[in-house]
């Protein structure tokens, strides 16, 4: 109510109004750049893409600059939800990604516990374990693409060692004959998704590990000491003394892992391009394929996929925001 009393003040109004409202305006000024860019690149496109999902559009403007989009109402959604096998394959793969990617959290914890000791050269081992997170997802995808290759990859070579013998072919070149066919993991509709997830786990485990390592630094030695005096050790120590103190790290690890699972796009694009025949698609890649890729150009339908993906993620984002809000309220 300080404002209402100062309005009666006879001092020069322009300067004073600034003085009065400085506290209210200043934060907005600082947030403004972020807000503007966030609106242009995130908020407005969300609504544009929802709007586009009611049209059928090949992405072209005619000679006069008029969009060639045609209003189809909810037709895209009808096709998507009731008539599109590919959509459900992608959705199922999204769920598989989310569930299996969660393995990164316990695995990261295990490696962190293992590495959390003072031995000569431990920093070196830590950085080696952290290494996969530093290299780009694209490179990880390429490496695993070769790893799985049934002809010359690690999988193929091991298989050849176990089940194949070398012979000389008709042209006098060395070739191999196998008693059973080597597994073509990325070329098999049942295995491709698992193959990519396994590759994706490599950097993700490293990420979770580093989060836990930082968390472990902050574990209070007094509490461990106290626990030890009370006779806790091994599993009990971990379960009741260490883990509760690592709760913030666990929360963060789960959040980044969920995000990582939803960002599976790069790995899929590099390793299988959603194939064979769409069986390793996830919604994000399916949307890309439908709207933007070479045989796509169905922007309306792609937007409908994007909208559905957005709604699914909204559930998760809302939970995350609610949780942050609650934590902040508890702390204050």
């Amino acid at each position: 109510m300080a404002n209402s009393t100062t309005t009666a003040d006879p001092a020069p109004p322009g300067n004073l109004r600034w003085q009065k409202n400085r506290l209210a305006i200043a934060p907005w000024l600082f947030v403004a750049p972020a807000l503007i860019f966030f609106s242009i690149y995130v908020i407005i496109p969300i609504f544009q893409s929802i709007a586009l999902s009611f049209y059928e559009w090949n992405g072209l403007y005619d000679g006069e600059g008029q969009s060639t989009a045609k209003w189809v109402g909810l037709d895209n959604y009808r096709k998507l939800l009731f008539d599109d096998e590919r959509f459900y394959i992608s959705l199922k793969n999204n769920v598989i990604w989310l569930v299996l990617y969660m393995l990164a959290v316990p695995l990261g914890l295990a490696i962190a516990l293992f590495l959390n000791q003072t031995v000569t050269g431990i920093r070196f081992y830590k950085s080696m374990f952290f290494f996969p997170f530093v290299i780009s997802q694209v490179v990880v995808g390429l490496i695993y693409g070769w790893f799985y290759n049934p002809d010359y990859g690690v999988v193929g070579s091991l298989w050849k060692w176990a089940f194949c013998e070398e012979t000389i072919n008709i042209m006098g070149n060395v070739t191999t004959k196998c008693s059973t066919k080597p597994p073509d993991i990325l070329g098999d509709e049942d295995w491709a998704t698992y193959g990519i997830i396994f590759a994706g786990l490599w950097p993700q485990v490293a990420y979770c590990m580093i989060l836990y390592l930082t968390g472990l630094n902050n574990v209070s030695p007094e509490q461990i000491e106290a626990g030890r005096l009370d006779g806790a050790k091994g599993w009990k120590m971990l379960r009741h003394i260490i883990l509760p103190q690592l709760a913030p790290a666990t929360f963060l690890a789960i959040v980044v892992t969920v995000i990582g699972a939803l960002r599976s796009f790069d790995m899929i694009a590099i390793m299988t391009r959603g194939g064979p025949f769409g069986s390793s698609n996830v919604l994000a890649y399916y949307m890309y394929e439908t709207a933007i890729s070479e045989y796509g150009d169905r922007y309306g339908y792609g937007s409908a996929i994007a909208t559905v993906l957005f709604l699914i993620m909204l559930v998760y984002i809302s939970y995350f925001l609610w949780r942050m809000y609650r934590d902040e309220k508890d702390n204050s």
Partner: protein
Amino acid sequence: MIKTALKTTVAMVATGLLSSAVLAGDLVINFDDPNPAPKEAFETAVEAFKAANPDINVTVNINDREAHKTAIRNFLSADAPDITSWYPGNRMAPFVEAGLFEDVSDVWDDNGFHDALAAIKPTMTIDDKQWGVPYTYYQWGVYYRKDIFDKLELAEPTNWEEFNAVAEKLKEAGVTPITIGTKFLWTAAGVFDYLNLRTNGYEVHNDLTAGKIKYTDDRIKKVFETWKEMVDADYFVENHATMSWQDAIAPFANGDAAMYVMGNFSVDGYLNAGLTEDQIDFFQFPEITPGLPRAEEAPADAFFIPSGAKNKEDARKFLAFIAQPDVQTEWNNTIIQLPINKNAEVGDNKFLKEGFETLSTASGLAQFYDRDAPAQMAKAGMEGFQEFMLDTSKMDAILERLDGVQEEVYK
């Protein structure tokens, strides 16, 4: 509002790429192949054009082929060049329908192209008008290891019976008959197209890609049954789903596979893999239905004038220029492909000679499954072909699914 926002971004990007201030007498050309030979051929032709038209100031933008496919959708409406390279058939259809390409029938009329470029005229035509001028094409067929064939005393098969006999002989000798890499899907479409062209002919190919015939039609089923026999008899290499077409050259070069259904651009790949020209040869895909007129695949590349071009007059001059016999002769000698102008000379290369022989005597020229069929159909179709090659027992389910897509695409 979406449109304006989008257009501004598009315009901003496009102005960065292209010179936007175009005066009269300026000619901006967007070309889409930065590889050494195509680039050199294009630049040589541009130099010749400049020499012949000293008053025209030509600006050239050469983009990566894949990037061009995305960029063209923006620059055609935002900041159009005067000429752009693109593909005929169904690939040009969306742009023609949106009114983004200029009708260039007059260039065809004035220069006698209806006769000189007759081979590719049908695919350059929509609504009885021609929308661009083609400058090159190449043949498809079966490339094979001549040394393996010689060693096993096999002759080039001309009909399906002979082809099967050759394949069996190869298998007995421990050689997989055909190599293929279907990771990028389109290679399987090449096999399908040829089986269809040889089983049912050119009309059925066109009717199928135009959506007039169902995939569950008996004629198409027959194609798949032949294909099924091939897959079930292990005619194709294993693990093809993880191989690109380049990867699939490895077993071919090693002598583990003897034939490859491919386009002429692949010859370079065989030579790079260490094979010599004497070790490889070409034969036309063998006859399946006796007496059926022989049609071939011959994808062409072409130049178009965007309807938003600023200097359409000089652009027409350029289109007329690049279809001249001497220009096409030199251009295609450089990129080792076939000129379309029937008065041009074919390069001195055994594959080009066989290709010319193959195409000039063909009863019809198809572009390719993914250029003749609309994009959405092509994508679904090619995924279906790959799935089929991995598990032939799914044939009926795949064909029914393709019928569903077809219904949706051509409604």
